Structure formats: structure tokens, C-alpha cells
């Protein structure tokens, strides 16, 4: 990234008392968690396809033995799913993360608020469907749609992603509201 233009820089008076940049937590420490568990959780969060124990150990910056131990624990908790046996590969379990999100929504908001969020999301969903002329974001071929409508791939990608986020939001909110009314608060219902 470019340095600031000269006219934006601190004037001589300001420069006498510059900020204490050296007191800041270094970026690589800030973005990482404090515990070994965080390192492994961060590693599996970033998995887009099944990874071996060794690959996950590398991503987490720890040894293979530790990786094996944490992955077994994570699997029992539902954070990861084991995909293959030999070699053992694991993938992040989006269902678990969704379940956790539903619990958070239930803890943070009451039914009335959740319903209002749901109504907004449904409205948004309908306006996307109308705009794209299809029932689901999965039915949009991004590159082709961009060509047809003379818009950039990036713009269409952004909208399709926002639509998919809206769909995800609707399903989480519906689950949060359902869990509340059928009295299964706090119970594990991982699909």
C-alpha cells in the first residue's frame, strides 16, 4: 500500500509526539488466539476441502500428535466431520457452526426481534428472486448473468453471495424461532 501524500503527513508540531506503534500487539499475534485449541479451531475454520491430520497440524502450527488429539475431540463435539479413514481426513462441519449460531441468536434476541429479522430477510430474499428472475441463488450462472445484463462478474458475485447469505439467515432464524416454541431449548439437534 502506498505511503500517504506529503500534504497529509503530520506537521512538525505533531511529529514531536508520534503514536506508540511499537507498543501494539504485532499483527501475527493479534490474529491468532491464545490457546492451542484456538490454533486448531482456526485451522479447521479455514478448510474448504477435506484435509489430512498432517495438513491440519501444519495449518495450526503444532505437531501431528496434538492434531490427532484435537481432531478426535472436535469430531466428538461435532466441529469437524471425518471424511476418509486411511489416510484420515477431516472437514469443517458447517452444520455444527449453524447450530451454534442458532443458539447464539436465541440467547441474544427475543422472539419478537427474531421475527422482525426474519421478515426483513424474507423480503430481501423476494427482491433478489425478482431481480434475478429465478427461484434460488444456486440457479444463477454468475458469468453468464453478468454478460447478459452487461454488469461486471464482481457485481453479480457480490449480489449472489448476499442472496446466499440471506437464505442462510432465513434458515437460521427459522430454526431459532422453532427451537424456542417446541420447548427444546438448549438441546443438541445437529442434523
Amino acid at each position, binding site marked *: *500500500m*502506498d*505511503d*500517504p*501524500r506529503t500534504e*497529509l*503527513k*503530520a*506537521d512538525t508540531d*505533531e*511529529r514531536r509526539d*508520534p*503514536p506508540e*506503534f511499537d*507498543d*501494539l*500487539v504485532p*499483527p*501475527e499475534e*493479534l*490474529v*491468532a*488466539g491464545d490457546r492451542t485449541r484456538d490454533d486448531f*479451531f*482456526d485451522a479447521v*475454520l*479455514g*478448510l*474448504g*476441502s477435506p484435509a489430512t491430520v498432517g495438513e491440519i497440524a501444519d*495449518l495450526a502450527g503444532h505437531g501431528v500428535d496434538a492434531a490427532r488429539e484435537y481432531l478426535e475431540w472436535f469430531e466428538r463435539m461435532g466441529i469437524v466431520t471425518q471424511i476418509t479413514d486411511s489416510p484420515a481426513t477431516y472437514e469443517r462441519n*458447517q452444520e455444527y*457452526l449453524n447450530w*451454534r*449460531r442458532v443458539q447464539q*441468536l436465541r440467547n*441474544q*434476541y427475543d422472539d419478537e*426481534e427474531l421475527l422482525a*429479522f426474519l421478515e426483513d430477510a424474507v423480503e430481501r430474499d423476494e427482491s433478489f428472486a425478482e431481480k434475478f428472475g429465478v427461484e434460488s*441463488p444456486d440457479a*444463477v*450462472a*454468475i*458469468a453468464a448473468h*453478468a454478460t447478459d445484463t452487461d454488469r*461486471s*462478474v*464482481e457485481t453479480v*458475485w*457480490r449480489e*449472489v*453471495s*448476499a*442472496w*446466499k*447469505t440471506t*437464505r*442462510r439467515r432465513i434458515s*437460521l432464524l427459522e430454526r431459532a424461532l422453532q427451537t424456542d416454541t417446541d420447548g427444546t431449548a438448549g438441546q443438541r439437534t445437529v442434523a
Partner: protein
Amino acid sequence: MSGGRDGVSGAPIDFARLNVVAERFATDDRSTEIDIQPEFAPDRIVCHYDSGFYPQRVQSARLEIAWLENGDFSIHYHEEHHEGEFDHRWDRHPSDHNTRDHVHPGPDAPTPGDDASHPAEWRDVLSMVLGEVEARQRAFWTE
């Protein structure tokens, strides 16, 4: 690394990853405030930099972070000046003008941007971005 192997597709926002980022940034001295928008489910998080890192001519600066479940992201750094503004964006997503990894460089983040190669691991991407912002902030204070 993750995502995009199937070419041009979208994905939902990765709430889990953004939550982790928001938690870690929340206690840091760089920012005065972390916004999660909209409040119940972030589409992106916004980190407002402490104005103490900037000379008076810079009114405010923020970093907006969006991450998708397939690993794509868009990170936008923005400064407001008394006269004008500065924008710089680090992106990983399909486009018709650049490779999947690219930057839209400051001062005005033009399209098309420059092809780039960001780190594979998401924490390394964030750490790179924070490092670049800090380098710019430091440069405000040198002659």
C-alpha cells in the same frame, strides 16, 4: 486455498470466521470500536481505527472485512481526510478483470486492480493487511 475451485460461484458470509475476527480485534488498541452489521448476523465487520494513529488532517479510518464460507474475501481500508479520501482493497473472488487474488490499490481503488497473490491461510491474510495498514500509519509521522 479454500473455495473457488469450481470457478465462478458465490457463497454465504462466514459468520463463524467473522465472529472469531471480531472477538480478537475487540480487545486491541488499534481500534476504538468494532461494528458488526447488521447486529444479529454480520455481513461484514468494521474496525474503526483509533484516530490517535493519524495526524489531524485525517478525520477517520476504518477496515471493513467480509469473508465467505468458500474462503473468498474482500477487505476494504478507507480513510476520510479533510479534503478527499483514500481507499485500498484486498480481494479474493471471481471477476472479469483480474485473477482471483487481487488488490485495488490506493488512493482510489480502481477497477481493474492489480493481480496479486495473497497468503493461503486466512489469519496470514489478515496479518498481512494489518501490517500494511500499520506501515502506512507509520509513514504519516516521518518526513
